[in-house]
Every structure is written in structure tokens, then in C-alpha cells.
């Protein structure tokens, strides 16, 4: 059996990590807007994936990676 490309666990870990740093006040306003975008993307990707079929998931992952590159 193969590993899936998009991992909920990874997404969750990343969100938690960013949140922790935000709570520790490690970002200035400029970095913050970047992180807000990133977390928004992660949350959206997770929630969309829960409600998508296999084919749709592929699209989401692609879109998700594309939006990463834009940052």
C-alpha cells in the first residue's frame, strides 16, 4: 500500500506550529499576513478534502501546491 500525498496529519501539524509561533508573538505584521494566508489555505484544503472524491482530491492538492508556490 502506498502513502497518500496530502496528509491531514502534516496539515494539522503545520497549522499547530504556526499557531504556536503566533501565540508566542514570533511574527511581525508582514510575516503574519503570509502566515494567515498559509493557514487559511491549509484549513480550506483539509475541509474541502473531507468532502471530495478521489479525483477531486487530486485537483485540490494541485491547487494547494500552486498556492504554496505563490507565496
Amino acid at each position, binding site marked *: *500500500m502506498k*502513502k497518500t500525498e496530502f496528509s*491531514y496529519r502534516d496539515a494539522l501539524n503545520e497549522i499547530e506550529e504556526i*499557531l504556536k509561533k503566533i501565540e508566542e508573538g514570533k511574527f511581525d*505584521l508582514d510575516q503574519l499576513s503570509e502566515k494567515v494566508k498559509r493557514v487559511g489555505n491549509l484549513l480550506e484544503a483539509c*475541509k474541502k478534502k*473531507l468532502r471530495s*472524491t478521489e479525483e477531486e482530491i487530486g485537483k485540490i492538492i494541485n491547487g494547494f501546491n500552486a498556492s504554496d508556490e505563490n507565496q
Partner: protein
Amino acid sequence: MDPHRSRDRIKLSELNSAVRSVLLESFPDEIWVIAEISELKVNQTGHCYLELIEKDEQTDRICARARANIWSSTYRMLDPYFENTTGYRLSKGIKILILARVEFHELYGYSLTISDIDPTYTLGDLAKKRMEIIAKLEKDGVINMNRELPFPLVPGKIAIISSETAAGYLDFIRQLDQNSFGYRFFCKLFQSVMQGEQAEESIINALGKIFESETAFDVVVIIRGGGSKSDLACFDNYNLAFHVAQFPVPVLTGIGHEQDETITDLVAHKKLKTPTAVAEYIINSVYEFESQLTLLQDRFILQVNSILATSNARLKVTGQKLISVLIHHFALMRAGLTSDLSSLKHLLRNFFNMEKAQISTLAQVIQRLDPVNILRLGYSYTIFNGQILTDARKVVPGEEIHTTLKKGYLTSIVSDSNISKKP
């Protein structure tokens, strides 16, 4: 004895008859016998015919065998009684304690006629067997393996071991598809026999296919609709439990029974009562994950908002400082302006005062220039044709002229006009 003498020979029927009387003499009463059912048939009239065996405990080989029957009038009562008490039907593989009469029929030979069964023996035997299997799984170190696997955050890809036609399978699919949250699941059925002797091999086979599959399944579910407990005997199997326990993906069972759990249930990651309950469990796991996301999202929004609020507050304070500085600055500037203005005013006043002085001088001059003042001195002036008359030659005798004096006016008719002499 001489086999050629008729006196020393008997017919088979005579022998059988003799055996029968000896047996009856030896076993005049019914006796309690422990045996295992190896075959069981019920004919059209409701009589039950069994084959009973005994296996050697060490070698597991059959060391004794006997035919038995339960007449329909007895079977009609014993069968439901046994099933109600043990949860199992009288069937192959079950060990029983029977009250039997030893029978011998010249034509059909030796058999036992069963009049009663003690189900508590069977219960004890099953419990003993079950404990032995559990003990073996423990000894093999596999019993907790599947249970200790982490359950996936989102069990979205589901491998189903069931029978396509099973009601439980359809219940499961329907429950998943109609979840109220709109979650989507990827399900794949791995067909298997779900009861009887073939179930063990069939299910182990299906597990193998799932393992070799291209898809990374998050969870395996073993489901079937409800059945009698004896249908579930296949799930109390060491070999099956051994495979389920060691499967590298969490296994959920929903094999449709309310009472004691089977050994397969015991080693599975989670045992649920019905296929529908398995579906609910999966949906709930996803819901819990989403709730976790929502919590994180709320915390995140709260944090970001608080940072923004702090920044805003700081900006406001800075702004207010700036404003107060500006106000101060403007105050100074205004003060400057005010003094400028007053000097300007002063200047203007001076200017105007001077102007006023000049004007009054001019006014005086102008006043002085008013012809009235000249008239006061006795001078007068004359208007002719609307103009002040300054040249006598402009008037010929007979014309009318108007003279203004200090007091009053004169209208005169010119009698003479002469430029050279005074009158």
C-alpha cells in the same frame, strides 16, 4: 470349536441379537456421555441424526465415533433450548454432554438415542476453547498489535470485507453516503464468505488483497448482517484472529451481534455492534478531526485579531501622539501668526490713521473748496445755459442768467455784455 459343525456356527442376526441383549444388560439405564458433533442432519419428519466423535487431546485425531439420533418429539424441544442457552445451534464442531440410551439394532448396528443435553457443558467448553485461543494469541505477542495502531485522523479510504449481497454491507454504504456533514468516502469491497467453514480462509484472503492493493487504505472494516451465534463461530478462530491482529491498518468489526464478542472482535482495533455503527464511528472520527480544525481556526482568528487589535491600538497611540505634537506645533505657529496679525493690525491701524489724517486734511481742503464758503465772503456765481458763466462774451443782451448768492438766487435779463469795461 469346529467351524464345520452347524452347532458351533450362528447367523449374523443371532449374533447381533446376542450383542443387543448383552448391551441392554450392561447399560440398562441412560448414561451421560461427552462427545463432539461431527455431522448433523434433520430429516423431513423432524428426526435428527448425528455422528458423534471424540478427538485425542494431544494429537487432535479422532479416537472414537458413534451414530446418534434425537427423535423429532425430543429434538423439537432440545434444539431451541440449547440455542437459547448457549447462543449456538447444535452443529458440527460443538461439544455436548448428552443423556443417551445405548441402542443396538440388528440391521443398523450400534447407536445412541439422545433424550437430553446439558448446555452448561457446551458453554464451559466454548469458554475454555476461547480462553485457550486468547492465551495463545497473547503468547504469540500479537493480541494487541492492531489495537495499538494509531487510528487515522480521517479514515477516508475504506477497505470493506463483506459479502456484496449482505444486508449489513448495504446498510454500511448507505450510512456513509448519507452522512449529514457531506463527507465523502472512498470504499472498496473485498468480497468474502462471511459465515461457515470457508469464512476463515476467505477473510484471510481478502486481507491479503487489501495489503497488496495500490490504494493506501486508512481502515479495514469487517462487516456482515446479524446472524445466530453459531454463524459467528468462524470469528472465534485462532488463525483469522492472528491475521487480523497483525494487519498493519486498523481493523473495525461490525459482525452484527449483541452478546459476547468474538475473538476477531477482541483483536480488532475497535469492535462495533453493527455495520451501521461502524459507519457512524468512521463519520464521527472525521467529524472530530474537523472540530479540531475548527478549534484551531478559532484560536488562530482570535490570535490574529488580537495582534491586529494591539497593532491598531499602538497605531492609535502613535497617532494621538502625533496629533498632540501637531497641535502643539500648530499652537506655536498660531501664536506666531497672532503676533504677526497684531503687528499687521498695528501697521494697518497706523496706515489707516495716517490715511484718516490725510483724508481729514483733504476733507478740510475739500470743505474749503466748497463754493458756499466763497459765497459767504460775498462772492456769487452765475449759471448760463446750465454752465458756470466765466466769459461775458458768451451772453448777448436779452438773455436770461441765474446768479447764486450766499442767500438766494437772482434771475436777470442781460442788458449789456462787455468784456472791456466794468460797469
